[in-house]
């Protein structure tokens, strides 16, 4: 997953919201957006909205709630876009 185009685009969306930029150097599918990258919950909503724009998809409330890690986001987007 770390090599996928979706993964890299998701990391690019998250990057501006990450307080600890050093943590981005070691991201993987299992990286928690809130706990590992220290993104706060309000900014996570902004990230969900940006992912909707970037990938032209809509994430329902329950789907958005499942986005805890970068891998979660990639899996949901890939499922929606058929990637």
């Amino acid at each position, binding site marked *: 997953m770390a090599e996928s185009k979706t993964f890299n685009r998701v990391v690019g969306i998250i990057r501006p919201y990450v307080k600890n930029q050093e943590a981005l150097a070691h991201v993987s599918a299992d990286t928690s957006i809130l706990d590992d990258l220290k993104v706060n919950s309000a900014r996570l909503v902004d990230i969900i909205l940006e992912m909707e724009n970037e990938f032209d998809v809509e994430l329902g409330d*329950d789907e958005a709630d499942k986005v805890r890690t970068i891998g979660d986001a990639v899996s949901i987007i890939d499922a929606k876009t058929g990637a």
Partner: protein
Amino acid sequence: VIVGNDIVDRLAAGVPSERFVARVLTPTERALAAEAPDGTAFVWRLWAAKEAAYKVLARADGELPFAHRRFHVDPAAAVVRHERGQVTVRWAEDGAALVCWAWLGADAGPLACRVATVEEAEAVPYALSTLEGAGDGASRAVRRLAKWLLATMLGREPDAFEIRRPERPAPARGAGPPEVWLDGLRLEQVSLSLAHDGRFVSAAAGLRGAR
């Protein structure tokens, strides 16, 4: 009493976008926000209430989905309604710090909430265990603030308390709510909630079964 809290650093939070507001507020809440003298402050008050209420209800169900629009804030009644229960909330503002604390039911019982800047709380000279000190500056700061709060409520030395956040059992992921330990024993009767955002930290504690 089961407590929850949330804090917003208004300067760091900025002005929420229209899509953000549409994503997290119900139509009724959006109408109220449109009429509010300071719409931005109003949105963040509702946001903090939803976050604090979620922390309360998630104590009973760690897998409770957090869909903001399913948490209905009634600012006039100072309650948050959800299909799982009604949570009472209170707000306080000090400069850019907006804090909301929440509890189940109408009677808070013994409950306390404190707010500090990260720098203020980090300067408190309380010892942290290895686990407590493993987080970032805000995590350490809010634990120091919590120890001060617990010491005040329970009449013990701050260093006697340990704040733990054990990983939740599978299939849940991530750390569970904070636990309070004293002299190596978990204090089941103490409910503790921690929050940090931007420059601020906040801790709220209540005593279960005490009214």
